Every structure is written in structure tokens, then in C-alpha cells.
């Protein structure tokens, strides 16, 4: 297995991935342009390790060792020795393309360049590089230390070798990889669309209320959460932009059409749990 991993971006996903890698005996260079973000990421990892020890899932030794394997870096060129680089920067194609261009010139030609994008085209990101064969998607789910799934996304020009290396890395992390063609939403974000979309339409057509639809889906369907609870949990803005992105990428396919109810709620600042109110009310906020 590889010895050195580079992680680009110390947000929630980047930090989570670094944590997973360090726990699987891989040295991680965790890069962010923002030093404060880096420090916060390390604090979060430390806190998560502490919780793991308290729950008896991790040992003190294990976490001390893992933590020493995470090296904060603020220069992209510090990632040059990594065999695989996982990019988890913000979801902006221009920024990602720029990053990949720099990553390519800073690393050996054999380095695998993986993006954790959930909504952008791997093929489009790869187009910024000279060797698109080594660019791939590795879509982790939040929270990365817990969620088992990794979508391994094969761009138009991604090589079979790159796919195999991504699969091996995911397995080494103890994750379950599934190989997906580079299509909008990959598997999960695409197949989950109707769960929200039909629920919103049912609400819009007054077939049943928010509470009733959630209860039906949970009790009759056996789902852990109802669609409205889940939208509140994810954030209505995040959910809307995922839907909008699918709709645009499929050139107006009616199955992905966003719903005005959701749009109005986002406009009014009712974003779900994080804003205190979405389809449900969460806290008194004044």
C-alpha cells in the first residue's frame, strides 16, 4: 500500500479523509492555503479521536500514532512526494481546475490525482491537466470516518490502472468502493433525487402534509428518516443546489426539476436544522 497521501483542503471532508488515512497507517500531508482552517481541522480530528477513545473504539496509542502522521502544510509543493493526492477543496470548477494544473506540475507523473467532488464532472477537472488518465473521482460521504461508501468515478479518459489504485486505496481505508461512470450525480446523488423531488411534489399537490409524508415513508417504507427530515438535516440550500445542478447537467430533464416550495424556503432563509427552521422548527432563535 502507499506510504504518502496528500489531502488538499482542510474542510470537513478533507479533515475526515486525512483522519481515515492516518488511522490506516498512511502518512498524510494535509494542505490548506488557510493556516487557521488547518489548525481547526487538527483540533477537530483530535476531538474526534478523543470521542473514539471514550467510546472504546480507538486506543490512546492508536490515536497518538495516527495524529503524528498528519502533517499540516500550507504550500502545495509540499505535497510533491505523495503517491496519491485527494482533493477536497470547495465545489468550484474553476478553482479545482486551477488546483489540478498546479498539482500536476508539482508531482511525479505517476501520482494519482483524485477529486472528492460530489457534483462536478471529473472529465472537466481532468481537462486542465496534461495526463487526464491519472485523474479520477473518489467521492467520500459525510462524515468520512463513519460512512463506508466511496464512489470511484471514472472520467472519460481515466485509465483502468487509476481505477484499480483508487479501489485499492478505498479498501485499505476499510471502505466499500463502487465504480461509477462520470455522469451527473454519480449514483447516490442521482438515485436519491426522487426521494426529495416526489415528496416535494406530493406536498405541493396537497396529497399529504410534511409530517404525514415523513411518517408514511418511515413506517410504511422502513426508511430511517423521512424526506423532509432529511432535507432539513442536509440543508435545503445544499439540497436545492444539488437538484439544480442535476437539472442543468441533464439539460432540463423533467425528472430533476427543482420545486418552487424549496426555492422559496431557501430564499426566506429557512435552510433546515442549521438555521433553526426548515420543514420543522428546531430551536427558538431570535
Amino acid at each position, binding site marked *: 500500500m502507499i506510504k504518502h497521501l496528500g489531502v488538499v483542503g482542510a474542510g470537513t471532508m478533507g479533515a475526515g479523509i486525512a483522519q481515515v488515512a492516518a488511522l490506516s497507517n498512511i502518512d498524510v500531508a494535509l494542505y490548506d492555503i488557510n493556516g487557521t482552517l488547518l489548525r481547526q481541522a487538527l483540533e477537530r480530528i483530535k476531538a474526534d479521536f478523543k470521542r473514539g477513545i471514550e467510546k472504546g473504539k480507538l486506543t490512546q496509542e492508536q490515536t497518538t500514532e495516527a495524529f503524528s502522521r498528519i502533517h499540516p502544510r500550507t504550500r502545495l509543493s509540499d505535497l510533491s512526494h505523495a503517491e496519491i493526492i485527494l482533493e477536497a477543496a470547495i465545489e468550484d470548477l474553476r478553482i479545482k481546475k486551477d488546483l489540478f494544473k498546479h498539482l500536476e506540475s508539482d508531482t511525479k507523473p505517476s501520482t494519482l490525482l483524485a477529486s472528492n467532488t460530489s457534483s462536478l464532472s471529473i472529465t472537466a477537472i481532468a481537462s486542465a491537466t496534461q495526463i487526464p488518465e491519472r485523474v479520477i473521482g473518489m467521492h467520500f460521504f459525510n462524515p468520512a470516518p463513519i460512512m463506508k461508501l466511496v*464512489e470511484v468515478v471514472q472520467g472519460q479518459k481515466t485509465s483502468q490502472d487509476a481505477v484499480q489504485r483508487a479501489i485499492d486505496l478505498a479498501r485499505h481505508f476499510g471502505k466499500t468502493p463502487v465504480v461509477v461512470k462520470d455522469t451527473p450525480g454519480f449514483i447516490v446523488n442521482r*438515485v436519491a433525487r426522487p*426521494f426529495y423531488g416526489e415528496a416535494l411534489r406530493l406536498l405541493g399537490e396537497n396529497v399529504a402534509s410534511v409530517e404525514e409524508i415523513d411518517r408514511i415513508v418511515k413506517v410504511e417504507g422502513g426508511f430511517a428518516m423521512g424526506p423532509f427530515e432529511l432535507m432539513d438535516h442536509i440543508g435545503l440550500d445544499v439540497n436545492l443546489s444539488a437538484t439544480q445542478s442535476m437539472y442543468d447537467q441533464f439539460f432540463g430533464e423533467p425528472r430533476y426539476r427543482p420545486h418552487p416550495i424549496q426555492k422559496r424556503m431557501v430564499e426566506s432563509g429557512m435552510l433546515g436544522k442549521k438555521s433553526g427552521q426548515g420543514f420543522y422548527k428546531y430551536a427558538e432563535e431570535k
Partner: protein
Amino acid sequence: MAKTKKRTRQIREREQAKAKVYVIGESPMVEEYAELCSRHGYGVLVDWNEQQKGTTSFETAAIKRSRSVPPDTSVAVELTNIDVEQKRTNLERLDKALPPTAAILSSSVTVTATEQSSWIRYRNRLVGISALPALIERPLVEVAPTVFSPKETLEVVRRFFQSIGKELAFVQDRVGLVLPRILCQIINEASFALQEEVALPQDLDTAMKLGTNYPFGPIEWADRIGLKQVVAVLSALERDLQEDRYRSSPLLRQIAQSGVWWKQA
């Protein structure tokens, strides 16, 4: 107090033991409903649609097949989603044979209860229910009253479902109700992805279970419900809502006809 409660329950149970339920429609829903009612003390008589004559045996010996509808039936359950013409024939037959006071609970997954009630004479006795093969065992049933359903009918429905251990959710009378519509669209989306060869079928299931915590993957759901049922629901939604959004994928329709998910390469 406790004694009277017990006594009332005993009386109700005895009444129930005498009460007859007549179940007619498609396999395996007929079998599932019959077993469920029988388990809760009802006398159950069943019949299947023509094309599915006498296909199954029951765990419970008390369940009998009967071509004719006994006039002392208190509740009739009609479970046809695919062949709507057959459903109409079944409902007309039930309506003629049953006394006007007997309620008809009819699956309204592919045709609204309101439309169904226009086919029969005593239209205030019919109420729509959500019925799909994998959902009958679940502890909740969606009930769609029509504009003709009086309080009395709804009370009968409420007591009946309570007696077989189900909670109710009243919804508007629309094709697909709530869960069948959501589930069938998830399956449809997965079938479009499969058609485009986005991923392998087993990976679609793995991804949805691990990535979103669904109790079953879309293909597992489809197999549990039955592909013909799924296509029938989608076609009904497409017809009723007149939107391209509910168009089923050609692959899904093909699988429904052939019964085979994919060709092993």
C-alpha cells in the same frame, strides 16, 4: 374496570372470528392479505384474477378459495393494480354480491378510488388503500377516502385496520398515493442509470444502502415489489399527471416483460 375491558375485547374478538373478509386480486398480494387477516382472527375467503388461477397454497388451512362472494362478508379487499379492466369487473361483481353496508377497500395505486367508485352502484362504500406486494407486511397503510365516503365507512375502515394491527395515514385520493409514487420513481431513476451503464446493478444497491441508509437498494425494492407492478404504477402516474417525468425507462419495461434484470457479460 379491567374486567369490563377484557370482556369487551372478548366480545370483539368473537365478533371478529365470525366476521368474514373476502380478498380478490393479484398474487402475491391476495396471499399476503389473506394470511394477515386470518392471523388476526377473521374468516377469509379469496379469489385470484383469471390469469393467476389457484397458484398458491396457504400456511393457514382456514383460508378457502371461493369463486362466489358470500353475502355475509363484512369487508372486501380488492387488490388489482396491473389489469385495470379486470379490477373493474371484480369491483362490479363485489358490488352486486355484497349488501350495501359492506365496505370495499380497494387498492388505489394505479387508479383513483374516486374513479373506481364511479364503476359501482353503492359508491359510498369504496375507499382507496395503498397496496403493493412488499408493503402489505408493513405496519402502516395509506387510506384514500373519496368525496363520497361517509364517516360511517371511514369508521369501519379504521376499525378493520386497527384489528389487523395497522396504523393509518389518510391521504388525498391521487394515483400512486405517497410511498408507491416515491418508491417507484426511485426504482425508475435507478433503471435509467442502469440503462446508461452508470454502474453495475449490485453496486447501485450497495451505494444507496451505504450512501443514504436506505433499507433496501432500488433493485432489491423492485424485485420485492415486482417489476410489472412498478411499471403499472409509473404508467398510471404518467397517464394521470400527464408528465414526462413519470415515463418509465425502456430497460425497466423490458425487464418487466422478460423477468431478467441484466445480461451477464
